[in-house]
């Protein structure tokens, strides 16, 4: 679980060994990843809560972002 203060941003770099979809819940980010190519997303903490970042094919939870 990664802590993120309200108002701050977090940059996440994800590399996948196959074509995939990255989904950052609650931040409204859904992006395609090409196999082997790093994808960079930045999420900003607005509303307190715990949000999951995951891959969809197959389902794989990567991390939880705790916005405080």
């Amino acid at each position, binding site marked *: *679980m990664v802590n993120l203060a309200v108002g701050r941003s977090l940059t996440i770099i994800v590399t996948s060994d196959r074509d995939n979809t990255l989904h950052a819940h*609650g931040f*409204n980010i859904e992006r395609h990843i090409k196999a082997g190519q790093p994808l960079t997303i930045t999420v900003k903490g607005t509303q*307190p*809560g*715990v*949000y*999951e970042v995951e891959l969809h094919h197959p*389902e794989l939870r990567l991390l939880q972002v*705790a916005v405080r």
Partner: protein
Amino acid sequence: VSTLAFASAVASLSAHGVGSRQDLPLPFIAVLIGAAAALFVSFVALGALWPEPRLCAESGRPLPSFLRRMLSSALFRAVSVTLALLLTGWTLLALIFGRDDANNPVPYVVYVWLWVGLAALSLLLGPIWAWLNPIRWLHLGLTKLARIDPDSSMTDLSPGYWPAALGLFAFTWLELIAPDRTTLHVLRVAIGFFVLVDLLGALVLGRGWFSRADPFEVWSRLFGSLSPLARRRDGVWVLRSPLRGANAVVVDRGLLATTSVMLGSTAYDGFSSEPRWYTFVQSSDLPSELLMTAGLLGMCLLVALSLHLAVAVSARLAGVRVLGLAAQFAPSLLPIAAGYVVAHYWSLGIFEGQNTLVRLSDPLGIGANWLGTAGLTVNAALLQPTLVATVQVVAIVTGHILGVVLAHERAVTLFERRVAVIGQVPLLVLMVGYTCGGLLLLFSS
């Protein structure tokens, strides 16, 4: 009043059937306060509570007469049933003709309103699903058409609460584990199958089927037994202590299984977002659905077996037969299950409950705004972390207190007076365990 941007367009398949946010972990100090309160209350209860049974169901303070008249009036009943049936029809419209995307209201209606919302309304108002249940009305219509008595049963066999226990387990499995559980093709199969089985059960066993076997009616009845609002046997609407209703719950076979599923499934939902658990699940070679199903079943069994164990020790200490005793104490788990549900689903219910209303305005996914609610933004005033943490601890501890008092009442009813205090110690230990477990689940996930 703060508002949240309304997140849409992306499917949210997280720990819950629906929902894209979870609560922050409970602060450790709140866990300590809650656990200390639970322990303190338990020991005070041992010494200070009444020595003779005193929770008779037939009491309570009658409501003011205009409220009583309104609640009993045919008009009020007709309006509320019509609204429930309209909502059902509206949802079926979205289920059959809607677009299969993240803006379809059906998964929200099913997983948020029907599950969390029904529990909340039942806790406040009583077993409302007993008279709103659309399948009950469908059954009545069909039996009227076929000119058969809706109450007639083809058999003397009674499965008790067992069908409800299985139905509730199946529903929580669908909500928490089933692959593609928010897609319309899965929901169509699940809802179609449920309606068919529920209807067949009622046709075979008569209308009495619904009150013991329909999972949503049992969900509503058992939580509704804790409502301060109740209709006395003589028809008078009264305000009463939640304890009286829960103490009057009919003990039948399968009740223990049902309450174990109600408590265990909520515990599993909390447990499933524990990072160590899901890291284990998704890095295992076994299919994750298999492990998650084992986890859900394990939680329900843990509740049932731990109650059996505590009751066995109680029976030994009190010198009574253990057979059937665990089921007698099953209703004391109801307030604890209610505390878990409130603590766990408070923010989901408020956040996604509003999102449900937004999505209902466009059941067919054509960009319509038929209810005028499509542009609502979610009001997050009730989701502030301190408030949520307070609600969670208060809910868990209140459930614990009510559970302890109910178990005490059962103990002085079933055990001889001189052993009633010692006989309930194992149950108190068990409840302290459930309460600390519930607080720790909120702390660690």
